[in-house]
């Protein structure tokens, strides 16, 4: 069952030197109770795609084309007020990158969680703080931690608090942008474990954005690989892992050092990510691709499904 359906989404940032095509014609779905991971280098448009879904765009950003439907509601056509009242927090909520450092230093975390509830739901103060306590228990903290201030908590605890906050209005879909980037390995493992358990227990849908493929493989069951504003490969995570089709995905998967198995040479991708003001013609990956052909320089590959296997790729090798 589809929960969120994005079709041909284009999101550009207007600058003095022209449009930055941060998200350029991408299509994907998030199904009910599924977790979709979005991976890619910094500047590839993965965060912009998430911001477009919530219409949290900066003043120079705009959705140029495409549709975003949540259930049967079209988000791109809604007014800001409608989105604020009906969509954000209640249906889709987001954990921003570095959100744990954005907690207000002079309010207790309990106050900040119940504030989110009071803003969106018609409940009494007591009920809201009661719910804040339950939420902290949900993410594996003691209920009396609601009386703590952010500086009294460690990084892992603060990350749990913002996760609890994002869950405060029972959303259907949770978007998490690099939720564990600033954390140590062991704390990261703790937070990921909590997130995985939550998804199963609350029957949530997730969209996880990260540059780290191993975090996505640990927590998600679908995967989208972004490069230069475009979705290059998309589908069932286990299938992509078993048989990565796009040369970029192949390189990414072998660029990670592994703790098990034989040590091998880490693959690297020569060159640098492209400038999205003037992306390369044809396939955007061709200047860095080892298998680039003549056609890759001239013609943009079509994003298509490979023999009905729920595995999409955008590459001339499979046309």
């Amino acid at each position: 069952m589809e929960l969120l359906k994005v079709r041909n989404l284009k999101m550009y940032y207007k600058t003095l030197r022209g449009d930055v095509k941060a998200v350029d014609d991408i299509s994907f779905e998030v199904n009910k109770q599924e977790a979709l991971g979005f991976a890619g280098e910094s500047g590839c448009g993965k965060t912009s795609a998430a911001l477009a879904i919530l219409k949290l765009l900066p003043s120079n950003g705009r959705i140029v084309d495409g549709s975003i439907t949540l259930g049967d509601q079209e988000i791109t056509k809604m007014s800001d007020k409608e989105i604020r009242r009906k969509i954000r927090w209640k249906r889709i909520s987001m954990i921003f990158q570095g959100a744990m450092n954005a907690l207000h230093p002079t309010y207790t975390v309990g106050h900040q969680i119940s504030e989110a509830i009071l803003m969106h739901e018609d409940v009494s103060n007591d009920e809201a703080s009661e719910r804040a306590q339950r939420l902290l228990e949900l993410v594996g903290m003691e209920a009396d931690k609601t009386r703590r201030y952010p500086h009294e908590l460690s990084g892992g605890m603060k990350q749990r608090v913002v996760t609890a906050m994002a869950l405060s209005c029972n959303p259907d879909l949770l978007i998490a942008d690099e939720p564990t980037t600033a954390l140590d390995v062991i704390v990261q493992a703790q937070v990921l474990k909590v997130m995985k358990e939550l998804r199963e227990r609350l029957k949530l849908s997730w969209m996880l954005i990260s540059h780290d493929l191993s975090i996505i493989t640990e927590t998600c069951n679908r995967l989208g690989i972004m490069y230069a504003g475009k979705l290059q490969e998309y589908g069932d995570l286990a299938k992509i892992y078993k048989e990565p089709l796009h040369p970029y995905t192949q390189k990414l998967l072998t660029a990670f050092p592994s703790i098990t198995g034989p040590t091998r040479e880490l693959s690297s991708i020569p060159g640098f990510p492209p400038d999205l003001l003037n992306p390369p013609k044809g396939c955007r990956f061709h200047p860095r691709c080892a298998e680039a052909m003549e056609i890759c320089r001239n013609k943009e590959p079509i994003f298509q499904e490979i023999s009905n296997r729920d595995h999409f790729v955008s590459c001339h090798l499979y046309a």
Partner: protein
Amino acid sequence: MVNDVVVETHNLVKHFPLKLGFFQALVTKDLPKVHAVDNVSFRIFKREIFGLVGESGCGKTTTGRLLLRLVEPTEGEVLFQGKDITSISLEREMIKLRKNMQIIFQDPYESLNPRMSVFDIVAEPLRIQRVAETEEEIEDRIEEVLEDLDLTPPEEFMDRFPHELSGGQRQRIAIARAFVLRPAFLVADEPVSMLDVSIRSEVLRLLLELIEKVNSSFLYITHDIALARHICNRIAVMYLGKIVEKGSVEDTISKPLHPYTEALIAAVPVPDPTARRISTVLKGEVPSAINPPPGCRFHTRCPQAMEICRRKEPPLIEVADDRQVACHLHGKE
């Protein structure tokens, strides 16, 4: 073997005193201090890549800086090529030594002076050390090191400023600055943790090639034990200022002896959906280094803690050839 030791530390200790308010300082007898590094001893051999692994706050960065005497040790000594560098009092002599010991910092956005061109940044160590006689010689040396780092053509990069470069290029400039003197010993403090994955392996490859070329010894500081496995020969795992386990990288990671090493390895996310890891995640967080727990510092979180761990501190003992561990589980028997 002993002659090949490049850097050696003996019982290195670094305590940072805490700043107290005026009245607090009057009534406090024992001034509280952060036990950043406590009794750390190891050797780095010639042409070896030695990894220092641990979570943030375990003292690995402080240890790296102590080795270069960028911070003064509270106790203990650092021998560089057989000479105790902690007792050198003349700044002039220290400068001479620094020709052979360099460091690459973690964040290339902060470690490069924004007002200096790439040429000036890389030329500065040459000028301070007076190793190149003429301007042409300086230029040649810089060209060579930039080419080694795949920053080609070098002329195109020399006049640029750091803000005109990407993160990966900046870190390569930082590496060029450290390598232009061809040092015998190099400390790298998480040199690729700020970079994107696709660029990371490229920078690492270039770094390893340069080390090979210059025949340096290398201390690699990282929190990523999987990465350490790929590039280091030997590693030491640190926890709360102490080395808990030390040995060759393959043995330590395939057969970890200390429960903390085991936990660190188990926490590494595996990029393989078919091999879900057993989720025994270590509970809790690293305790404060101001009042480290008595006995074994890890006992508060150790799943195998025994009575003795709470009372007695385990010494770092040799359990096999080139394999040391500080844990009561691996006693004399």
